[in-house]
């Protein structure tokens, strides 16, 4: 069976999306550009150190980490817990997404590598070998 690609104008797509969002009471899709590639001119010293230690010449998996939001707060999605981790309200955030994403990457590394990460407890409880 062949599929036909239906092309719609961007404005029409947006209009339909807005109607749909109102109908179902939730947003469709992301509120930031998930395909945005990092601007390496904005790397932070912490991230440079991490890349060096891991033997990578770029951000590797962190290229997919962006600062998002959940329940009205800035947050970063942690794939290891399959949930959002919220940024403290007092934290100062830069204006542009590139700088915000660099902060998100730092926060996520520190959280994932800390002893209070949920996987540490799970590992302790369920580790089989």
């Amino acid at each position, binding site marked *: 069976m062949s*599929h036909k*690609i*239906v*092309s*719609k104008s961007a404005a029409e*797509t947006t209009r339909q999306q807005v109607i749909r969002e109102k*109908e*179902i009471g*939730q*947003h469709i*899709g*992301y509120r930031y550009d*998930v*395909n*945005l*590639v990092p*601007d390496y001119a904005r790397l932070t010293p*912490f991230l440079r*150190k991490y890349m060096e*230690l*891991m*033997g*990578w*010449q*770029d951000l*590797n*998996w962190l*290229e*997919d980490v962006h*600062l*998002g*939001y*959940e*329940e*009205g*707060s*800035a947050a970063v999605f*942690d*794939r290891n*817990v399959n*949930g*959002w*981790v*919220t*940024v*403290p*309200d*007092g934290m*100062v*955030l830069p*204006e542009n997404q590139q700088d915000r994403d660099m902060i998100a990457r730092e*926060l996520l*590394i*520190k*959280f994932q*590598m*800390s*002893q*209070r990460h949920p996987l*540490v407890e799970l590992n302790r409880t369920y580790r089989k070998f």
Partner: protein
Amino acid sequence: MAKTAAASDMHGEQLTGRSQQRFFSAEEAEAFLYPGAAQVDISRRADIDAAPLTPREINLRIRALMKEGYGDITIRNSGAKHSCIVGILNRVNLTVEGSLGYFACGLLDGPNVRVTGRVGWSCGENMMSGTIVVEKNAGSTFGAALRGGDLVCKGDVGGRTGIDMKGGTIIVGGRTGAFSGFMMQRGRMIILGDAGKNLGDSMYDGVIYVGGAIASLGVDAVPAELTALEIGWLERKLALYGMEAPGGVANLKKIAAGKQLWNYDNLEPAEKKLVL
């Protein structure tokens, strides 16, 4: 001008019932490795002769060497064995002198792997982070469900490359088969040669760059325009692996999701409330 998180315009979003209520701590200690990760020294080298070993024994041997502090491990006589180098959540350099079978280098989180030969189906499946470089060809479903990291094949790959990928970067130096990028949700794929039929079929998000001819696009895969930032990123990424785009990076064709398949069920919020 910088804003606090509370004053950010991102606070217009109201999604409920999803938060696990986990918060970053401003006092989080600076750490770069997972708790419990083996402390390896990249300058310490070790060899494994894989000829008499089963895949399980090869994987256990790698873990044992990492615990002993070896950070640079070479596997010889790999014999195209299946399911080797899997589930390693550690920083370590691994070199395979030879080829590997199916599901090689799956479930990795951290290692840098180089395979001098070929690999079978599903190489790098579910990789979280790290790098895998295959010097020759790879089988089908290369990088299936890839979550992060760089997965590179300098030769040709089979069909359904990057099926269901949710992040990371796949680079193919040669051609790729049909249905590459099928149900891709996020991440980037760079194909320097030709792409088979139905490229990017049902892709939800993510980007595919193609240097050669595209046999046909799949449902909801549409051409898009390269940005200056992307061109810089592509040049940088390809240079890392000593690869070049035919005719230059600026001539790569960019394919993205048309987002016509973004359908949400009316009942979803109500169902969520019931579940949560």
